């Protein structure tokens, strides 16, 4: 049996579908950010993903996987601004950088991609696990994906998404130590982090959209 692989065109489809999911969840993300931040996280994510979608539509038929990610990352970075622009922008762009020359994308690459994304996030944002940021969804996702190594692509993505969701929920019990909300200290307890929820949303989208390919 041939191991399933995600093509560049698949990636365009998957990322565009994730953009729709972000659009649909924008108000919820704003609300989460409103409680302990400035209430714009959903808007910023939507602006970034709209631009990403727009940029991907302009790509040629024969585009490579790395160019898809590069394009997505640059478009997101240029359009979103805010804190998430550089963070998610770098996650995508660094993935593109790392995948230069690659033509297949299967289970193994999925784990690797998540690792690269975590490194990009930490490099840009300097967060540590427990700081109540996007990392608290991404970090458990990477651990779960690594633990699932050897399983099928969609299974790995499902476990990563589950771990990210659990991680996002767990941020409710954390005291923010980075970004705007950090000034609130203990007042952040009991409220989930908006960015961590975005990561959970993206990884869930990744799993479910890849499953429909």
């Amino acid at each position, binding site marked *: 049996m041939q191991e399933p692989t995600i093509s560049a065109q698949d990636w365009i489809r998957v990322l565009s579908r994730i953009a729709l999911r972000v659009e649909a969840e924008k108000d919820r993300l704003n609300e989460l950010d*409103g409680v302990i931040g400035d209430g714009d996280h959903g808007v910023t994510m*939507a602006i970034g993903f709209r631009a990403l979608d727009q940029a991907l539509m302009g790509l040629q038929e024969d585009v490579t996987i790395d160019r898809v990610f590069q394009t997505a990352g640059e478009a997101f970075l*240029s359009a979103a601004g*805010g804190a998430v622009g*550089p963070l998610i922008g770098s996650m995508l762009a660094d993935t593109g950088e790392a995948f230069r020359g690659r033509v297949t994308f299967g289970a193994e690459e999925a784990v690797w991609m998540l690792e690269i994304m975590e490194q990009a996030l930490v490099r*840009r944002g300097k967060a540590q696990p427990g700081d109540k940021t996007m990392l608290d969804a991404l970090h458990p996702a990477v651990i779960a994906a690594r633990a699932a190594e050897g399983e099928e692509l969609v299974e790995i993505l499902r476990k990563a998404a589950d771990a990210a969701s659990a991680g996002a929920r767990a941020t409710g019990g954390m005291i923010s130590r*980075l970004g705007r909300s950090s*000034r*609130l200290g203990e007042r952040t307890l009991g409220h989930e982090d908006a960015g961590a929820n975005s990561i959970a949303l993206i990884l869930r989208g990744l799993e479910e959209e890849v499953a429909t390919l």
Partner: protein
Amino acid sequence: MKKLINDTFQVTREELEGFVAAFPRAVRRVGIQAVVRQDAPVTGKVGVILGGGSGHEPLFMGYLGRGLADGCPVGNIFASPSPSIVLDATRAVSGGAGVLYIYGNYSGDCMNFDIAAEIAEKEGIHVETIRVTDDVASAPLEQKESRRGIAGDFFVLKAAGACADDNGDLEHVRAAACKANDNCRSMGVALSSCTIPASGRPIFALGADEIEIGLGIHGEPGESRQKLMTADQITDVLVSRILEDPLFHAGDEVAVLVNGLGATPLAELFIVFRRVARLLHDARIHIHRSYVGEYSTSLEMAGCSVTLMRLDEELRRWVDWPANSPYFTQVN
């Protein structure tokens, strides 16, 4: 949500179109969301860039002009401008003497401006950065460099813009901005929240008799929620917190800014200023120059902030330096 807007996602873009249409002799747009002085780049002069998310008008672009800013990269509402917007401004104001970035210390702004600075350096434009950290409510003094920036942006810009106008070189302009920031302390109070158009609902909720002391200018909750007090009582809290930092002493000279957050009538700001003046008088701190009005807003939030900048001979000179921009003009 009742606002004079068309499309919640186009607010910043349409706003900038209106702004440059209103002041065509003073400013022009470059790229999608950067605005620069009409006469930029001024050859041989340090380019002063002041930027951040929109929603704080007249900060930032209202202060484009002689003795103030050369370029303003403007992000979406309460969101840092992206590196490409910052670069649009940077390239347009670079007159060969380097560029200074001034912005409030928020992690989003730090990341985006840093990426832009890296790229600018690669293009041969030397960039220095000052992050404004005037808000005493946001971190204790030992962590001054992690405090956030609020209305202090205006004083830091005033110093940098004046020094650049006086043909200071980049190191000199950076030092002027740095000194202004080191000598600047602010604290604010919100009487109401505000609504980001694309979100459609107030960022936070305040009871009919509640105020939020020490809040951020993006609606980030503040230090403590309290019952409504009189203007004098509130001012006493703000000023005493500012004076707690061991920076101001009897005999000092200061510049004062009582800044409205958007919906507070000027009359109320005067009532606050009246009390500030009395408190400083009692502390034997002399007011050299005062600014009262909307300098750095948070959309239609009600409330104000108080900023004091301690002056030495150099800072007094920069404060008194003439300035000419659409929203701040000073002749001597």
